[in-house]
């Protein structure tokens, strides 16, 4: 994967290609049965989490994906984040089809171009905020000193410049999520994916977190996709996509 390939314009249109685009993707899982044994489809139940979804997220966009639990929105996020591969259909990052990429290339893609924010924060316990934020840079091969600088900048950007050495246990829930956001933006990704980022926070704290995400979107032109089941959260984004039973519904305008 090289930078030029990612940045090259889509030949079919004049506009730059979407940051990420899924076309007719389906994703099924087999539950029960005996795992991946060949011809095991009779043993278990096949669950169709996504049944043909097409969605493009343009550069600099702020989108929410709304749906009840079990609607397939998390599965969609995993595909948008190159964490998973579709059963059928295509996923394109900056116009480039991900089907041809190896697991290692997908790891590099996630590392360089995508930032994740999870509902459960997913911070390493016993590890200070600064080191948590610097973690993606470890896998990007950035030197130690440069990592610390960039992690500090990212923490300052989310208003935690005074909490560099604190461990997760010493931070509040809102601070947890802000550390997680700092970690997501430390690599300057073009796409930030947030999976129920306010799900574990009270309303006021949740609003603060959303405000940070909106600022990042507005100031840095980072495309932000927020997954939520909460219509109030969704109401704060200019574009809303509704998922139900594995398909997109056209949402209210």
């Amino acid at each position: 994967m090289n930078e030029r390939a990612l940045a090259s314009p889509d030949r079919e249109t004049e506009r730059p290609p979407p940051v990420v685009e899924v076309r007719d993707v389906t994703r099924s899982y087999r539950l029960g049965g005996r795992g991946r044994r060949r011809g095991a489809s009779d043993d278990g139940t096949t669950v169709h989490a996504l049944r043909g979804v097409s969605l493009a997220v343009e550069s600099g966009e702020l989108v929410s994906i709304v749906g009840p639990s079990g609607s397939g929105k998390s599965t969609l996020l995993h595909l948008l984040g190159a964490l998973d591969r579709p059963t059928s259909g295509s996923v394109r990052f900056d116009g480039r089809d991900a089907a041809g990429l190896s697991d290692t290339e997908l790891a590099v893609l996630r590392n360089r171009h995508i930032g994740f924010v999870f509902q459960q924060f997913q911070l390493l316990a016993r590890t200070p905020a600064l080191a948590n934020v610097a973690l993606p840079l470890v896998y990007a091969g950035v030197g130690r000193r440069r990592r610390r600088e960039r992690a500090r900048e990212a923490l300052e950007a989310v208003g935690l410049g005074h909490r560099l050495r604190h461990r997760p246990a010493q931070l509040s829930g809102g601070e947890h999520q802000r550390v997680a956001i700092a970690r997501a933006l430390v690599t300057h990704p073009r796409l930030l994916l947030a999976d129920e980022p306010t799900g574990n926070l009270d309303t006021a704290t949740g609003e603060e977190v959303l405000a940070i995400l909106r600022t990042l979107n507005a100031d840095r032109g980072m495309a932000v996709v927020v997954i939520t089941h909460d219509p109030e959260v969704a109401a704060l984004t200019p574009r809303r996509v509704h998922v139900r039973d594995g398909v997109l519904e056209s949402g209210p305008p």
Partner: protein
Amino acid sequence: MSLAEAFKVALGAIAANRLRSSLTVLGVVIGVMSVVLLVAIGTGARDEVSAGIEDLGSNLLIVAPGGFEFGQAPTVSKFTLETVGDLERRLYGRALVSANLVSGETVRADDVSTFASVLGVTETFDEVLNRRVVRGEFVTESDVAMGNRVAVLGSSAATGLFGAVDPIGRTVSISGLRFRVIGVVGRLGATLGVDRDAQVLLPVTAAQRLFGTLRVDTVFVEVPEAEALDDVRGEIASELGLSLEPGDFSILSQEEILGVAGEILSTLTGVLAAIAGISLLVGGIGVSNIMLVSVSERTREVGLRKALGARSRDITRQFLVEAVVLCGVGGVLGIGVGVGLAQAAERFTPLPATITGWSIALAFGTSLVVGVVFGVFPARRAGRLDPVVALRYE
């Protein structure tokens, strides 16, 4: 992720589970310790036996009954004093011939008794086998000719029977026969905890009468000029061939005995090392086991790292380094404990123990290899985890 980063993460994970890590390391410590200790004992035994054989001198030929090979059962001797006399005449002026007859007996002096090896010897025995008389005199030619009931004591036999008292002129009794003590020989030391000074030497003729036999067990031929060794060997063979079958005797040089003894003791060392290796193997399985626990405990962490851009090989490396660090620490501690115990054994028990550099290097190298071998399966399993599944793992 660089190796240095992997190291940092591994050390953090080990420190986070101190008790568990210590117990895992303990398994490796015991394995490495056993390797170091048992190899030291095996090596020590070989060195000690070799030193004992080298004491014989390099210009000595030993004529032993039967064949002399690793695994061959001992044979009853067909040599007699006549054999010895024939050899003496044939080799006169070129070599010195001696012979002995050995039996373990209880030896008494007044109210004290001790168990000693009783050797019937010819008068040349002290010269041929480098025994130094420190007091009194050795068995003489006429003692042998007349079958005089005299005895020369090894140093510990002398102190065992007589304590601080001068034994010269006193009597010892063996199987009811009394022998007058005429000399004491100097210290030889111990081999493998067997005291080589608990000996009583009698004139061979007196010993034959005592044991009711006409045989001698072993004939020793000292050849002062080393270049004559092969000629003398040929003459011994042709002389003995006149009266004995070829399978009835074998002629050995010090080098050949060293070879056979070395073979036996190397086998012993190998067996000890293999037994120790089994405990190292068990330690390795413990490491594998704990690494699997560690991987499943940290499944979510693996998922997170993968989401943030860790490649499979970054994850595999992280866990592999952890396993190797556990084993490396175990290796270093095991070497320390093993060396300590070997020194204690050398000092406080009759067991000899010699620490060799190669056994330490081998033990440490093996512990690292164990880390890789037993770490690679859990580490690869961690590397292959699906990030989506891993992130959801409870």
